[in-house]
């Protein structure tokens, strides 16, 4: 009896120790320019950390940078306040995380969308070209004219990586497919310019495209609206956006930024957080295409079969999707 009591007491102590250890973490997140409600990347991270906060009751510190000098400043400030882990959002924060992580080797950092090679940094990147390839396959098969469009946000290598994967997918499915590609702009305002997105979409429809993939943050809203007005198809990005214009949203290319942010906090809490490079592609379910009630009538069995074939090929390695950022060129575009 006594022994049993002791064991019980010990296990209770162990449990409380574990619980208090779990509550020990002081997570922090530094959003990048655009802010946490950018309908896209930052918001994905925000959703992830909010989910964590709701589930566990653990509050997190946050900061939205508004100029480039603030990135390092904000991350260092989080570190000074003893935050751990610290999540940095977006490739632009890579250099800042690298500097601060060297100064605070005992604090765990997670950088999303960039690679920082340090023993206390977890780098989460996505193979957007693989996910874009799949929606490219779907776009080309849904297109009657064999002409598909791509509308990017700000003209940066990351978005060209989307465009390049998409073009390859379209040409993989339909060899003669034509791909039109436009970028909304060259400044960060290109992420939130729905009217320009709508204009670009209309001009691509005029050229004969009938499916458009928008990887443009808030600008995409205008593209989806234009597609609905013209009775053509659009493809969403980052999160599942099929519900935005049900019936004309062919699908969405999802990117698990919310999951990455959630896992960074959760992993730190559970002690499963690991540094190093985490490249999340199709095989890791980091990117995918969305199928739900809103678009199931638009996706035929032939399309499903073809996209499955492409997916299996990419996962097994028999199809290699060219990554624009590897050599800054795209043979398919």
């Amino acid at each position: 009896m006594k022994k049993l009591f002791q064991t019980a007491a010990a296990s209770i102590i162990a449990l409380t120790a574990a619980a208090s250890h779990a509550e020990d973490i002081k997570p922090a997140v530094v959003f990048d320019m655009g802010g946490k409600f950018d309908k896209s990347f930052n918001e994905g991270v925000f959703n992830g950390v909010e989910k964590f906060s709701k589930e566990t009751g653990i509050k997190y510190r946050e900061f939205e940078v508004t100029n480039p000098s603030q990135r390092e400043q904000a991350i260092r400030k989080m570190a000074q306040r003893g935050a751990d882990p610290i999540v940095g959002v977006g490739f632009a924060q890579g250099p800042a995380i690298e500097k601060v992580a060297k100064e605070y080797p005992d604090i765990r950092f997670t950088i999303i969308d960039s690679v920082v090679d340090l023993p206390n940094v977890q780098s989460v990147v996505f193979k957007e070209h693989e996910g874009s390839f799949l929606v490219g396959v779907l776009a080309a098969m849904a297109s009657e004219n064999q002409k598909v469009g791509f509308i990017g946000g700000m003209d940066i290598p990351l978005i060209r990586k989307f465009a390049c994967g998409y073009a390859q997918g379209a040409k993989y499915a339909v060899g003669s497919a034509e791909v039109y590609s436009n970028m909304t702009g060259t400044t960060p305002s290109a992420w939130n310019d729905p009217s320009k997105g709508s204009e670009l979409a209309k001009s691509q429809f005029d050229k004969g495209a009938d499916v458009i993939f928008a990887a443009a943050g808030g600008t995409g809203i205008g593209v989806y609206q234009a597609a609905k007005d013209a009775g053509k198809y659009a493809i969403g990005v980052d999160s599942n956006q099929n519900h935005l214009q049900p019936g004309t949203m062919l699908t969405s290319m999802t990117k698990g930024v919310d999951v990455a942010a959630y896992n960074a906090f959760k992993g730190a809490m559970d002690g499963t957080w690991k540094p190093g490079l985490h490249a999340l592609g199709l095989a890791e379910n980091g990117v995918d295409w969305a199928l739900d009630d809103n678009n199931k009538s638009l996706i035929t069995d032939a399309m499903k079969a073809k996209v499955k074939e492409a997916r299996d090929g990419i996962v097994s390695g028999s199809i290699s999707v060219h990554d624009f950022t590897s050599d800054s060129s795209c043979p398919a575009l």
Partner: protein
Amino acid sequence: MSSPSKALPAWIDVGVIPLINILLAFFVSGIVILIIGEDPIEAVKIIIYGAFGNDYNIGYTLHYTTNFIFTGLAVAVAFHASLFNIGGEGQAYIGGLGVGLLCLALDQYVPFWIILPLAIIASGLFGAAWAYVPAYLQAYRGSHIVITTIMFNFIAFSLMNYILVNVLIEPGQMSPESRDFLASAQMPTMQEAVGWFGIEIQKSPLNLSIFLALFSCLFVWLFIWHTRWGYAIRMFGFNENAANYSGINTQRLVVGTMCLSGVLAGFVGINEIMGNHNRVMLDFVAGAGFTGIAVALMGRNHPVGIIIASLLFGTLYQGGAELSFEIPTIQGEMVKAIQGLVILFCGALAYMTRPTIERIFTAIVASNGTAKEQTNG
């Protein structure tokens, strides 16, 4: 700019009125902060501590101040010739490109003391080149400088983006940024500089460019008020026809003034690219060009006023960032609103309080006068 009335002594015009305007702006900001349920006194404390609380915070404040001095001077110089240079943002951006190209080309071959003067020249030349085209169009073709300089901002954004994405990007990297400069092309930070004298401070973006900024202030003061060219510029600003009639080549004057304005804006590149980031990147100007307009307005286009106004805006930038860090309900937008209120009261509404103050002042002077008369009598 001429003052609307000569009734007030200078110290009230440049000292008391701006101060009252700032207090009004803070008062309205305080009400807004109260409305969202936070303590305004606490907020002011955080702003002041965040800007001046320790050497690290002061470093950030003065780093922003340096930028604003450059862009404020740029706007002020053009203003003396009644030219409204809205293109400081683009000129600073292209100035930074000039610095970056020079540093990337030479940092492997020559030491810092050769790169520094060349980089200063490059930033100035690139900034001036970016101001030259709108200036030429204004002087010889009559296109309005406000419109053309705004447009040139957008061209600068596009050009920088193209160059960074396609030419300067470090291969295999996601972010459109150039490689880091070698040590020979890095402006010593203030931490290193005071380290030479055995003083230790924390590392912040503050670097020796601030001395270039102060030197520029001295130069602008001498140039505008103590040279023939400065006289010509001011004369042109007061009355274009008179300047023309007295034999000044007004077209060359417009181009020359705008180019000088561009040079000063371009120096932001030295502070940000050579002194802070040590690589060419997007968006490093971060609104300093536009803030320069408010700084020049508030500083009454005088270098001393510009230094003070720059310090105020540096405080708002740095203290504002700390504010949104410490009180999460006060977000970045809120801080921008406070900055906007300061600009509104000190810039657009600069003369709103003037009649009242004038009346009070004349009343005081008059009562003093009668008091004197009584004692005399």
